[in-house]
């Protein structure tokens, strides 16, 4: 394996959790809901995925459990913001704080344990091809799932009736309600989908990226995923490009540290966060790009007047 191949492979592994978490949030925001709890759902996914994999010995059961944990956390959020019309920003924060605390509590007995790793895809013949073999046919399964989810979301949002309803609910919930669409149910479903992909993103961290449990191991990735959704102007294609760009920045920092250029490691570690701020500035200064796709009802609660 050449050095370039290795770099591309690590960039993909660094990007996949961002893509997984962000693609779910994109759907959530398209339906008009702002869920700031990604970090909390993700870290709960990471810890429960790791724990179940340890107990059962199956990494796949861990992945399944992580999805459930993400969905469970997201349903808490949905109940609060949709049924009880609580403030979405504050509720999202509470989900994040709760998730970080709860994961620390659950994970305290798993700290330092060697973890299980999800295997790589290996198709005899294809995976051994030169140059493209490992890259196209030799990734871990979640990479393919993340790409499939992105394509699926793009297709559903743009080409199907369900996608149209989701977008209508996000653009103007009063009109959607008047047309007879179940606004709150649609939003519940979207929020649960977002919870599932955040859980998957967490499982990716604790079962693939660094197969062990470390407290707060999400390290702000949930927040970066949120920024990515804004950066993508709510378009799945751009979201994927953004996720790989950010994964690249993350790896750039790691490689530069390894090369020992005399740059303080903390400066390189802060790169993804600084890059996030810069990306948000770039996209926000472009009014045309940023306004055109913003779901008009984003972050507003909906109470049907019966």
């Amino acid at each position, binding site marked *: 394996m050449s050095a370039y191949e290795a770099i591309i492979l690590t960039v993909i592994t660094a990007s996949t959790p961002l893509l997984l978490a962000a693609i779910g949030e994109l759907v959530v925001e398209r339906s008009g809901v702002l869920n*700031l709890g990604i970090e909390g759902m993700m870290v709960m996914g990471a810890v429960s995925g790791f724990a179940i994999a340890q107990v059962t010995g199956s990494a796949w059961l861990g992945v399944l459990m992580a999805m459930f944990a993400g969905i469970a956390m997201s349903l*808490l959020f949905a109940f*609060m913001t949709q*049924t*009880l*019309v*609580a*403030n979405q*920003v*504050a*509720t999202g*924060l*509470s*989900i994040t*704080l*709760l*998730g*970080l*605390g*709860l994961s*620390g*509590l659950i994970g*305290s007995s798993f700290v330092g344990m060697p973890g299980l790793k999800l295997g790589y895809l290996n198709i005899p013949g294809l995976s051994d091809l030169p140059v493209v073999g490992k890259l196209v046919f030799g990734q871990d399964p979640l990479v393919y799932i993340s790409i499939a989810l992105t394509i699926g979301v793009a297709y559903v949002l743009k080409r199907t009736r369900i996608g149209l309803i989701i977008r209508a609910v996000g653009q103007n919930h009063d009109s959607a309600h008047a047309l007879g669409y179940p606004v709150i149910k649609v939003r519940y479903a979207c929020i649960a989908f977002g919870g599932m992909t955040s859980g998957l993103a967490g499982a990716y961290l604790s079962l693939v990226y660094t197969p062990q449990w470390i407290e707060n191991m999400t*390290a*702000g990735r949930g*927040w970066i995923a*949120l*920024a990515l959704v*804004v950066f993508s102007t709510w378009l799945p294609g751009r979201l994927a490009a953004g996720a790989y760009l950010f994964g690249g920045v993350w790896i750039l920092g790691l490689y530069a540290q390894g090369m020992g250029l005399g740059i*303080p490691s*903390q*400066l390189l*570690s*802060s790169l993804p*966060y*600084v890059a*996030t*701020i810069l990306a*948000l*500035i770039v996209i*926000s*200064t472009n009014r045309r790009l*940023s306004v055109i796709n913003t779901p008009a009802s984003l972050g507003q609660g909906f*109470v049907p007047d*019966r």
Partner: protein
Amino acid sequence: MQLILEKRAQASHFMHFASPLLAISLTVLLGGVIFSAMGQPPLTALYIYFVDPLTSLWAIEEVLVKAAPLVLIGVGLSITFRANVWNIGAEGQLTAGAILGAIIPIFFAQWQSPLALITMLALGMLGGAMLAAIPALLKTRFGVNEILTSLMLVYVAQLLLDWIIRGPWKDPHGYNFPKSVAFDGWHLIPTYGDGRVHMGLIIALLAALILYWLMTRTIKGFEVRVIGSAPRAGAFAGFSQTKMVWFCFLLSGALAGLAGIIEVAGPIGQLQPHISPNYGFTAIIVAFLGRLNPIGVIFAGLLLAISYIGGEGVQIELGISDKTAQVFQGMLLFFILMCDTLIHYRVRLLKPQGGAL
């Protein structure tokens, strides 16, 4: 069966104050369930958690020490959230304040006078305000979401602290530990008697009183309330949304920075990589629990300070992870938001057969 919300004709004044108490009860209740799920006697654990911190002088002192930064940051955030401005990067602003304020004891160790301490506190406020100015500028100039930028800067500020304390600001005679020189003399916040309670507590209470006065007796306070609850009305009244964003970020940033320098010049006594057990984030809960009201924040700050000490208590006496404190804090915010629904709505359970409208 279905949950139905009925809008109240008027916001319930009673629920406004009952909601935090209800939220606290729910937290204690669920806390007991969690303790018993962990195989602990729930009543004993709850007693150690919530009552023990108030039974010894030593513990009460520790509660007050922890309440000081929580109240100081919480009052700034309460006004910020009231104006519908979302600064969630107080933890970073706290760090920035600690760094800038520490310039005096690290580089001007010889300068020993009350003025040195005042300069430190002023620099702390400046540091916090400077970091908070970045999201304010980006929000007002480019329309960048302030939630994300203020949060990203937390990581940047913490990494900056980590770097200077392992690099240029490390104590040269400190056996290579990542710590600055120990502050002494006028570079430390005066304490009361021989105890740990320091002047920061008075500063925090003063800040709460001043901001209470600002919110209830001045035009600025009125402006905050109008812009927060009815931005369009505020615009017609000629209140500037841009100025409000700046005001809120500079104020809450400065107070968080002040809390930061008080922590390193008080209970810690030197600069080190970890200077705060998430005070900046916990203060968000303090602000909400205190009804976004500076006086309410004082009580909320005390309660969350108890949750820290209680968390340490159950760790020592029952051997449970100290993460319980964070879980309790998260639950508390969750329940308070849930109970707040009752201020504006009546919740009713609808049986399915009641289909006729």
